[in-house]
């Protein structure tokens, strides 16, 4: 079953320019560890049909408004804990 994530993006157009992105994603999938946040390198595409096996991603603006497009995300690498 596909997982669902949400991410907050400052400038959507610039964000989608490179072929891969680094971003925080928050899991929306129900489970024991709800809303788990991961820092990842990933490939994000729209429309989602371009990556049919990938998980679903909802993207929100900096102030939390949901962009109307639908996206797919394929996580390529975990970028680790959030230690400074």
């Amino acid at each position, binding site marked *: 079953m596909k997982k669902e994530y949400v991410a907050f993006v*400052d400038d959507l157009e610039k964000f989608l320019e490179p072929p891969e992105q680094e971003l925080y994603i928050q899991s929306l999938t129900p489970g024991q560890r709800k809303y788990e*946040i991961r820092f990842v390198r990933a490939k994000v595409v729209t429309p989602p049909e371009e990556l049919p096996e990938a998980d679903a991603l909802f993207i929100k*603006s900096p*102030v*939390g408004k949901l962009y109307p497009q639908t996206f797919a995300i394929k996580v390529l690498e975990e970028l680790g804990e*959030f230690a*400074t």
Partner: protein
Amino acid sequence: LATIFRKYYEPAGKPMPVAMVLGPGPLSAMIAGTVIGYGLNEVDYAGGLYQQPVELVKCETNDLLVPANAEIVLEGEVLPNVRIPEGPFGEFPGYRTQSISVQPAWRINAITFRTNPIIGMTPEGIGPGGKVGASLSNAINIKKALLRRGIPVADVSIPLEMEGLGVVISFKQHEADLVDRIAEVLCKRRAHVPKIFLVDDDIDVFDMREVMHAFIDRCHPVRGTHIIDGKGSFMLVPYFDRVDRQKLRTDGDSVSIIYDCTWPVGWSEERDIPVRMSFKTSFSQAMQQRVLDKWEKRWLK
């Protein structure tokens, strides 16, 4: 709490024990959102409002004390050198203004709770919400700060309608350098209330209709408006753009505005200051009473 963590625990690589109380009782909750000053104990103030000491008990997993009648207590520790993204949140000015930010994280080690706990809450945003205590205590602190500097303050109010970002100050007497002195205290170093309304003491600072009347009728659009460059403000101010927030983050630069709604110092009481016309000021006490008596007898039956 953040200062203690950053100054003592994190440099030593130690986790800081913390407890979060959900449902501590209404007066304790109000005091928790109140600025009472460093070194003072909030629970003493809550006890003062309750007119009896707040009973405390030790946490299960650390030595911190929490209200014995709390509905839910989360016990844990803030982890050194760990940051995770949070937000965006709606905040006290009434808007969600910023994106996620990376902040310290804490690990919960224990949860204790009363059977069938009850949580009272107010949704954050425009309206009274959680800013009642902070508005009240900030107004008191501003009044004390101005009086300490010899400024002839009559009353200070941070009306809830101003969402914590505006303050109304009335004065017992006119002074020529009032705006400069107010700017020095409230804008130059720490502009946490960026809109300041100065009024004469015939205006009730706790009555928003009176305050609006003074602003509209007595504040000259040019001579009564003073823009003050200063330091410090809230990132959460809704009208800040990205450049404003960056300047605030890097240099602490901010800007305030003082609306001087007092009659000018040089105006003569006899010749210049307009006479206020209203039911209460235009008729004798006896006439007012006669009208009120008839009003009740004839029209309010």
